């Protein structure tokens, strides 16, 4: 399989604080890959390492076959970066920023950029600093699309966007990526939006990867079970069956990759008297919280 990104035994610390240890993952060509995790688990750190702005404490990260902190300029031309908060040259106008970037990329597609800008209804001499966050996100996306990169790395594209602009961003992105067979590596703090977009994901917990699998497989194999308990309220261990659990009074919720029957048998074997045991369906956001916990 052709891997566009490959991270091997990636470990990073800020001073003495370990962010994660021995992270291993790869991203296949043509896939939309999401990196999910709660605040402080190292999503932005990973993006910074991939972008070459941070050297990992140990381990290697390869992008298009080159070490990420030492990319050749011609390799950088194949990577479109969307920076957090859609950072761009805000002292430029819509037309000026296009003129600037177009000189760096041989495969520049001006029409794609202006196609997106025209949808915004802003004039070409509109200064980017005078735009709303949503409009700026479209400018940034338009520039990346016009660059026609092999790989797009999108760092929290949803930051500062309202629901409408998030949808617009996702619509344009997925249409472009599917049509042009691009590879995308993305993060977002709005997990729900990613459900319809990403193919594969890794979920990072405290200092390690909790899971790496196609998102459809995750949603079909990860279950949420509710039940009530009579009498003593037991503490459950985390093991092969119980990925996570939580309780409120005598109501229990258990998250597991096992089937309903297996979990029920497991609980009964522990001597727990369960009532009203049933599965509740989950979207990606619920499944994510189920795996990583609310706190």
């Amino acid at each position: 399989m052709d891997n566009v990104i490959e991270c091997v035994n990636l470990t990073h610390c800020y001073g003495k604080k370990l962010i994660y240890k021995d992270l291993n993952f790869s991203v296949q060509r043509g896939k939309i890959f999401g990196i999910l995790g709660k605040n402080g688990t190292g999503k932005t750190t990973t993006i910074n390492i991939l972008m070459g702005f941070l050297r990992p404490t140990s381990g290697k990260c390869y992008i298009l076959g080159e070490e990420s902190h030492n990319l050749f300029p011609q390799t950088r031309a194949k990577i479109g970066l969307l920076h957090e908060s859609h950072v761009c040259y805000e002292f430029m106008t819509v037309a000026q920023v296009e003129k600037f970037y177009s000189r760096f990329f041989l495969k520049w597609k001006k029409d794609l950029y202006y196609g997106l800008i025209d949808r915004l209804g802003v004039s070409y001499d509109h200064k980017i600093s005078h735009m709303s966050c949503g409009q700026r996100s479209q400018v940034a996306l338009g520039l990346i699309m016009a660059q026609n990169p092999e790989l797009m790395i999108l760092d929290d594209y949803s930051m500062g966007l309202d629901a409408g602009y998030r949808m617009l961003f996702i619509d344009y992105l997925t249409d472009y990526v599917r049509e042009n067979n691009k590879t995308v590596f993305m993060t977002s703090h709005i997990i729900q939006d990613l459900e319809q977009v990403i193919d594969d994901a890794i979920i990072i917990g405290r200092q390690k990867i909790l899971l790496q699998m196609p998102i459809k497989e995750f949603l079909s194999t990860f279950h949420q079970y509710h039940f009530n308990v009579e009498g003593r309220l037991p503490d459950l261990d985390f093991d092969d069956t119980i990925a996570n659990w939580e309780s409120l009074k005598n109501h229990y919720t258990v998250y597991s990759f096992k089937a309903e029957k297996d979990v029920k048998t497991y609980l009964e074997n522990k001597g727990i008297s369960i009532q009203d045991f049933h599965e509740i369906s989950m979207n990606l956001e619920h499944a994510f919280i189920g795996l990583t916990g609310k706190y």
Partner: protein
Amino acid sequence: MYKAILYKEWLKIRWVVLGSVLVILGFLMYIGLNVRQYFEMNDPIKVWIYLIQKKVLYYSLLKFIPIFTAIVLAIVQFTPEMAKKRYRLTFHLPFSETKSLLFMSGIGLAFILLIAIILLVGLAIIGSIYLPAEVTISSLISVLPWLLAGFVSYLATSAIVLDPSWKYRLLFVLFFAPFIQSLFLENGYYEYKYSIGIYFLISLLFGIIILFPGYRLRKGSVK
């Protein structure tokens, strides 16, 4: 690609360039009119005493123009790159970051050179109209340390603005401040006649200073 970088830098600095050129031209005109008025209002002996014996530099109004312009220019040029970590945009361009940084600072230095040329030509014109050649030449030599201070201040301010670490910023201040201050110790004409060459050679070494903060930014000194 160089053309694109030049275009970006021009968008950032154009108002500083236009503004400072206008200010300098205004100052030169003021100095010219002042000298003319002094010659018209006073007899030649008094002018001689005033200019030569009392060592009054008739162009002292220009003293801090190069350094002030250079500092403003470096701030205007590099602050937008640092705000919101925008330097990452530059570093991700398919262009060597070393060449990019050197070219960006080269553009700033070229503008300071333009300022220097305007100042020198302006003073030469004023001198050629009102003063003996010896006084004109000595005034041009005396102004060189101020111009050199402009170049060095630009490099120093650029490095200070670009550096991600306050520790290094402070080190740059402590390193450059005495050198720049030593270029303003004149007390008359020809004061730096024999040392300006050495100052110039030392200043050349500062030319690549901008690469140090650039390297730290690129290799991840910023979390």
